[in-house]
């Protein structure tokens, strides 16, 4: 152990800078057994960082990966990882900015639905790890004074979110994540927004009916049932309060109901 004073001091800044910058040289003072610089050895760390983060991203976004193919996805993930490395050691929280990155990625401008697929997969992950809570029992609705029903407010289940899209999001997810290879035709002209939640162990992905997105948004932001129904009807002439409410309650989108 010579450790001569002349040896370059390699701090974390020098090491870290060379990890995400593939063009940066291996920091001086990192050596192999012969005491000489060893760029290929340093490259093991660089490779571990990039590849493991790309894999983490691929686990969060399997449908985007399937849609793009492994090679393209890995190249895209590498660009994302380099631009947006994680800030937390908890990797289940990594990659929330991926949808916006995909949306702004110039070579993918002809595939505008990819960003929404990524948003839905991020929402799926949030639901998967969300706090557990018992969903509202739909029977509770029957016990409420009908006069108070219009002003009743639903309390969001911790796992519930809504992803809106002009693209057939439910079909794209089914074909590329949940039931790949089922061969069902996808009509890219059919807009589908999703309600995503997890009443117990399994994450539910529910396509919303016409007007359903506006209705759910209103409920999730604290509007009363009557006001939300009005917004649903404004959004679509085909809006059906009973169908949309039954979809939400069936999925377990709420954990409570408050009446005045």
């Amino acid at each position, binding site marked *: 152990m010579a450790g001569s004073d002349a040896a370059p001091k390699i701090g974390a800044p020098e090491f870290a800078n060379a990890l995400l910058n593939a063009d940066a040289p291996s920091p001086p003072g990192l050596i192999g057994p012969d005491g000489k610089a060893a760029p290929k050895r340093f490259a093991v760390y660089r490779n571990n960082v990039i590849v493991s983060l790309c894999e983490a991203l691929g686990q969060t976004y399997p449908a985007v990966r399937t849609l793009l193919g492994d090679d393209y996805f890995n190249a895209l993930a590498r660009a994302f990882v380099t631009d947006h490395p994680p800030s937390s050691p908890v990797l289940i929280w990594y990659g929330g900015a991926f949808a916006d990155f995909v949306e702004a990625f110039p070579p993918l401008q002809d595939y505008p639905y990819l960003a929404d697929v990524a948003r839905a997969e991020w929402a799926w992950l949030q639901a998967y790890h*969300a706090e557990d809570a018992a969903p509202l029992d739909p029977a509770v609705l029957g016990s409420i004074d009908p006069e108070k029903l219009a002003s009743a407010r639903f309390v969001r289940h911790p796992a519930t979110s809504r992803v809106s899209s002009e693209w057939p999001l439910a079909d794209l997810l089914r074909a590329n994540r949940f039931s790949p290879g089922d061969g069902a035709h996808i009509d890219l002209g059919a807009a589908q927004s999703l309600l995503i939640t997890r009443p117990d162990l399994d994450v539910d992905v529910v396509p919303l009916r016409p007007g359903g997105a506006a209705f759910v948004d209103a409920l999730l932001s604290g509007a009363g049932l009557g006001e939300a129904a009005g917004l649903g009807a404004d959004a679509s002439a085909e809006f059906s309060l009973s169908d949309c409410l039954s979809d939400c309650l069936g999925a377990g989108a709420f954990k409570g109901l408050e009446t005045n």
Partner: protein
Amino acid sequence: MFSETPSNSKSRTAAEIPARAGAGLKPEHVAEILETGADVGFFEVHAENYMGAGGPPHRQLEAIRERYPLSLHGVGLSIGGEGPLDGDHLKRLAELNRRYEPGLFSEHLAWSTHDTTYYNDLLPVPYDEATLARVCDHIDEVQDVVGRPMLLENPSTYVAFEQSTMSELEFLKEIARRTGCGLLLDINNVYVSCINHQRSAEDYLAAFPMSAVGEIHLGGHAPDTDDAGRPLLIDAHDREVDAAVWTLYETVVRRHGSLPTLIEWDNEVPEWPVLQAETQAADRILAGHDTAALRQAV
């Protein structure tokens, strides 16, 4: 069931990790483990995979913890980092310790966070006085916040630092002496590092401060070569434990007795029976030691 405090631990199996083989827990194995009541000494999890609020990961881990002793292994605290420890992350580790009451809690001699970036790899530290002082301060803080002694794992490394002034062994011994922490002896890391730096793994192990060791890790590595064509082993955890590592392990067990021994298999994860067979191989070595000790005693 998730809001309950550790009072539900009354129904749990004892926390203490037996001197047997355990396995790194993988979500895809949990159902089979629970259905078959697999005969395994303990399970170990990466703490960071259980830092979400709820959902299937906690449900699975609670079910495993009811039936098996659990070891909690952090991979992201960056104890060797230049900056202060992430206080929020430390609190999350303390909370997991409180919630699951693991028999062992361990982390790495490595860094992974610098400034605000997390690099998701166990990066090496120079073995010098400044780093030693910083690592010891960090371990003091961990043991203080988590409220229990931790085990520190020896690293696998691919490069050495020209600025190092002491050996890895001197560095580890001094950390254990100053902080009172235990050590996690990863024998695959020993083998990988010794091949990579052209040292003798036998000599390293013969000089290892075994009285501080609370657990052993075994795992698989991948062969590669370095800039000069010399063998370079990668700590990949993607295959069976190498024959050379089994031999080193047998020597350690014969010399120092039985210790909790974890099989790590984190990438290219096989079917459960393949991983279980690795734990059984370790159990046979541990049992062989017991038999030999018994014969000597008679």
